[in-house]
C-alpha cells in the first residue's frame, strides 16, 4: 500500500512512470520529455499498441529511457466526461499495472489538480491488502509498490489538498481491516478494544459492557447476545469538531454482529463463513469516525456500534421469545436470524435519549432480501426525510457508493404486527428489506433518519474499481462526503 507524495514535474532518474491520456487529449509536457529521452520510442510504441486513451485502455513500454523501468499509459476516456469523481476509477485501474514496481512517478502535469488527487486516491484505495494470516507467500507474489510520486505544477498546494483524502483512506483501510478479520479473532470484546485506537485521533471512546446494558434495559440486544460465550459491547465514539461545541451532534449507528450463525434459526452451512462480515455496518461507522477525526472535520458526531455474536446454544434466545427493548416496546422474536434489527433498536434508542441528535443514519448488513432487490451495486436506502435521503443519494453518486431509495409505508408496517407483543421481528418474504426498515423506524421517534441496508455492498466477490475483492468499507467515503458537503460549519 504505497505512500503518496507530490513532486514538481520532472523526469525521474529511476523507477516507472505513468502517463494519463484522455481520449483525443494531448500528451503532457512530462510525457513529451520522456518521449524525447526515449528518442521517440514512447510515441512509436503507443502508436503501435493502438493506444487512444479510451477508458480501460492501457499500454506498457519497457525500459523506454535510461533508468526508467517502464512507462505505463492509462486511458481516461473522453476528456469531457472526466471529473474528479470519475477519476478514482482511473487510479484504481492503474494500480494493477504498477503494483510490481517499487517507485512510480505519476505524470499528472497535464490534468487538473482535483482530478490528479482523486487518481492518486484511487490507486491508494485499490492497493489495499489483508495479509495478516498468510505465512507462506513468496516475495515475488507480493506487490512492491512502496511509493507513488504525483508530479504536477503545484506540489505544495496538492499536498495540503490531499491531506483529507489521506485521512479518509486511513478510515477506509481501518474499516476493511475490521471486516476482514476472522470471527474467532474479532469478537465483540476485541472489536470494542480496537475502537480505542481512535483515541489517538482525538475521539472520545466509551465502552459499555453487559452490566451497563442490562441497567439500560437493552433487552433486544442482550437477547441476541445471550447465546454466545463472549460478552456483548456497545461502543460510543464522540468527535467534537464543530466550532460550536454545544451544537447538537449527528449520529451514525452500526450493526456489529461479529459472527451471525442465525442462532437457533440457524443458517444453512453453504456460505455461512461470509457472516463474519455481519459487523460491516459497525466497521463502517468506526472507519468513518477515523476519517472524520483524521481530517479534523468541523462537525459534532457520535458513532455508536452494537457488538454481539449470534450463536445457537443452551442459553440462546428462541423463536417465540418476547423481549423488551430499551424503548419499552416489546418484540416477539419469530426468527432469531433477524437479529440485526434487535441490536439496532436498542442502540438507536440510546443514541436518541442520550445524545439528542439532529439526525441519524444507521448502517447494517441487514437483509438477504436487499440483494434480491438491488444486487451488489446499490445499497438500499430507507428514510423518513426526503431532504436527507436526497443528500445521501447525491453523496453516493459522487463517491461511487451508490444508494437506491426504497419505500416505507403503513401498509408494510402492518406486516410486522404481532399477536402477542407490540411487533414481531420479521414479516413474510414479501418486501423483506422494507419490513426490516419499518421495524427500525418504530425506534427513531420521528427524528430525521436514513437506514442503509448494505448487505449487498459491504463485501465484494470480485475486484471493484477502487476496492479489491473482499471488504469494501462501503459507506465510509459516502458518509464522509455527506458530512463534508452539507454539515460542516
Amino acid at each position: 500500500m504505497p505512500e503518496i507524495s507530490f513532486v514538481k514535474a520532472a523526469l525521474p532518474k529511476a523507477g516507472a512512470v505513468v502517463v494519463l491520456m484522455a481520449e483525443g487529449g494531448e500528451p503532457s509536457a512530462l510525457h513529451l520529455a520522456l518521449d524525447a529521452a526515449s528518442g521517440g520510442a514512447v510515441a512509436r510504441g503507443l502508436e503501435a499498441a493502438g493506444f487512444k486513451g479510451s477508458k480501460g485502455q492501457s499500454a506498457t513500454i519497457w525500459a523506454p529511457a535510461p533508468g526508467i523501468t517502464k512507462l505505463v499509459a492509462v486511458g481516461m476516456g473522453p476528456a469531457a466526461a472526466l471529473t474528479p469523481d470519475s477519476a478514482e476509477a482511473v487510479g484504481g485501474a492503474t494500480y494493477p499495472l504498477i503494483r510490481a514496481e517499487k517507485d512510480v512517478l505519476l505524470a499528472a502535469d497535464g490534468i487538473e489538480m482535483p482530478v490528479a488527487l482523486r487518481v492518486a486516491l484511487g490507486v491508494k484505495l485499490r492497493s489495499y491488502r489483508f495479509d495478516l494470516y498468510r505465512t507462506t507467500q513468496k516475495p515475488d507474489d507480493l506487490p512492491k509498490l512502496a511509493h507513488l510520486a504525483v508530479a504536477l505544477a503545484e506540489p505544495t498546494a496538492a499536498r495540503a489538498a490531499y491531506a483529507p483524502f489521506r485521512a479518509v483512506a486511513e478510515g477506509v483501510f481501518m474499516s476493511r481491516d475490521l471486516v476482514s478479520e476472522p470471527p474467532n479473532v474479532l469478537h465483540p470484546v476485541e472489536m470494542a478494544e480496537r475502537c480505542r485506537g481512535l483515541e489517538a485521533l482525538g475521539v472520545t471512546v466509551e465502552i459499555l459492557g453487559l452490566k451497563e446494558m442490562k441497567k439500560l434495559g437493552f433487552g433486544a440486544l442482550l437477547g441476541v447476545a445471550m447465546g454466545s460465550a463472549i460478552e456483548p459491547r456497545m461502543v460510543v465514539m464522540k468527535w467534537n469538531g464543530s466550532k460550536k461545541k454545544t451544537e447538537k451532534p449527528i449520529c451514525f449507528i452500526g450493526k456489529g454482529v461479529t459472527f451471525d450463525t442465525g442462532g437457533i434459526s440457524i443458517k444453512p452451512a453453504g456460505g455461512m463463513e461470509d457472516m463474519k462480515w455481519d459487523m460491516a455496518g459497525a466497521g463502517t461507522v468506526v472507519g468513518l469516525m477515523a476519517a472524520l477525526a483524521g481530517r479534523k472535520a468541523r462537525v459534532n458526531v457520535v458513532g455508536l456500534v452494537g457488538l454481539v455474536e449470534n450463536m445457537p446454544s443452551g442459553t440462546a434466545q428462541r423463536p417465540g421469545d418476547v423481549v423488551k427493548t430499551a424503548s419499552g416496546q416489546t418484540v416477539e422474536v419469530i426468527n432469531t436470524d433477524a437479529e440485526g434489527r434487535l441490536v439496532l433498536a436498542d442502540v438507536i434508542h440510546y443514541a436518541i435519549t442520550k445524545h439528542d441528535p439532529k439526525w441519524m443514519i444507521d448502517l447494517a448488513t441487514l437483509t438477504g432480501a436487499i440483494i434480491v432487490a438491488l444486487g451488489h451495486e446499490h445499497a438500499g436506502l430507507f428514510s423518513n426525510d426526503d431532504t436527507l435521503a436526497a443528500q445521501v443519494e447525491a453523496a453516493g453518486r459522487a463517491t461511487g457508493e451508490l444508494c437506491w431509495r426504497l419505500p416505507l409505508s403503513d401498509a408494510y408496517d402492518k406486516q410486522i404486527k404481532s399477536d402477542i407483543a407490540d411487533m414481531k421481528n420479521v414479516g413474510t418474504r414479501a418486501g423483506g428489506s422494507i419490513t426490516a426498515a419499518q421495524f427500525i423506524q418504530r425506534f427513531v421517534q420521528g427524528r430525521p433518519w436514513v437506514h442503509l441496508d448494505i448487505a449487498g455492498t459491504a463485501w465484494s466477490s470480485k475486484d471493484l474499481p477502487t476496492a479489491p475483492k473482499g471488504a469494501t468499507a462501503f459507506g465510509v467515503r459516502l458518509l464522509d462526503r455527506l458530512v463534508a458537503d452539507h454539515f460542516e460549519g
Partner: protein
Amino acid sequence: MLPVAVRFRAAPGDVPNRAGPELHDGFDAQGQTIRLDLIQGPEAAGALAWAALAEGRHALEIDARGLADPVALAAGATLRAWSPRATPRGTLSILCDAPRMAARRWAKTWPGIAGNLFARDLVVRPANDLTPAAFVQALQGLSSHGLQVTVHDRAWLERHGYGALSAVGRAALSGPYLVTLHWPGEGPPIALVGKGLCFDTGGISIKPAGGMAAMRADMAGAAACAGAMLALALGRARRSAVAVLAIAENTTGADSYRPGDVLRTARGLTVEVVDTDAEGRLALADALHHAIAQHSPRAVLDAATLTGSIVTALGHHHAGLFSNDATLQGATLAAGRAAGEPLWPMPIGERHREDLTSAIADLRQCMPAGLGRQPDACHAAAFLREFVGTTPWAHLDMAGMDRAEADNPLAAKGMPTGFGARLFAQLIQEH
C-alpha cells in the same frame, strides 16, 4: 359492460339500501343502512359500502351530498361489485349536489373501470379454460368495440423468426400466439406489451408444487394491456394506441426448450437459455421487438408478472418500474398514483447488464441458480432493455400485484385486481 348501472341524482329515490356518512350499519324501516367510511378516501369508501351490502341485495343509494368526489365513490363501488361468478346486475344511485357534472365526469371514468374488470375476467379464468386459444378468442371479441385485432399463430411466428416466443410456447398443445390490438387514432401510437402466459409450470426448470396453482394468473400483464385498450375504445380515445400480447403456455413436454438452448430472437440477438422458468422475458423480447418494428411507437410500456424477486423487493404494495427515459418514467409514476396502482422506480445498473454476459450467445437470459441470491427483477429489466433500442420504454414488473394478497377495499383476498389497466389507460389519455 359494468356489473352495476350507475346514476347520479339530486333527490333521494326509493332505494331500500342506503349508505351515507351519517348512517350507522344496520337496518331501518326502509331497508339496510351502511355507514360510509371515508378514512381511506372516496374510492375505498364506495367499495366498502358495496361490500357491506347483505347477500342478495344488488341496489344501493349512496348519499354523497356535501362530499367532494361522488364519481370516485361510484368507481369504488363498481370495482368492488365485480365477482368471479356471473355478476347479478345491480344498480347504484349516487345522491350528489351537481349530478349533471358528476355524470359527465363519470363518462370519462367508467371506461377505465370496464377495462379493469375485463382484465379481472381474464385473470380469474383457470388455465384449462383460458388456454392460449381461448385467450385469443376472448381478445377477438374486442373487435366489436372498434379495436382491430390481428393474430399471429405458431406457424407465423416460426416462419418470421420469433425464436424466443416460439420456444417458450412450443411444448404446449395450444399457442403460442402474438396478438395485436390496434386503436386507430391520431399520430404515432403508444405501444403496450403484455406477458400472457396462460399457465407457467416453469418448463423443464419446473417450479415446486406448492403455490403452482397461482401461475394461472401469469397472463395478468397481457390482461392489463387488453383492459387498457378496451378502456381507450370505450372512451373513443383521440390518440392511437396499440397493444402487442405474447400469449403462450410454458409447460413440460418432449418438445420443451431446455436450459442451455440458444435462441435467435426476432430482433436478431441470440439468447442463451439458463432457466426455462425465466420465460416471460423471452416472450416479451419478441413482443417488444414486434411492437417497435411494426408500429414505430412514441413510447413502449410493458407489463408482466415477471419475477419473484420484485415481490421480495417491494412486497404487495408497489409494482416495480424500470425505464430508460426519465420523462416517461415520471409520467408513468404519476399515472400509477392517479389510478391508485402504485409503482416504485427500480434501477438497471451497469453490473446488472454485465451479469448477463454469455459465453456462447449475445446475452444470457438470467443468472444461473446456485450462485446465491440474485437481483432477478433488475436482471430481467436489463435483458428487456436490449430489445427496445432507443425507443422510450417503461417496464412494469407487477408480480405480487396481480391478485389481492389480503382483503382490500377494491378486491377480496385472492381475487384478481386488474392491476395496470387503469394506469395504462390513464397514461395514454393524458399524453
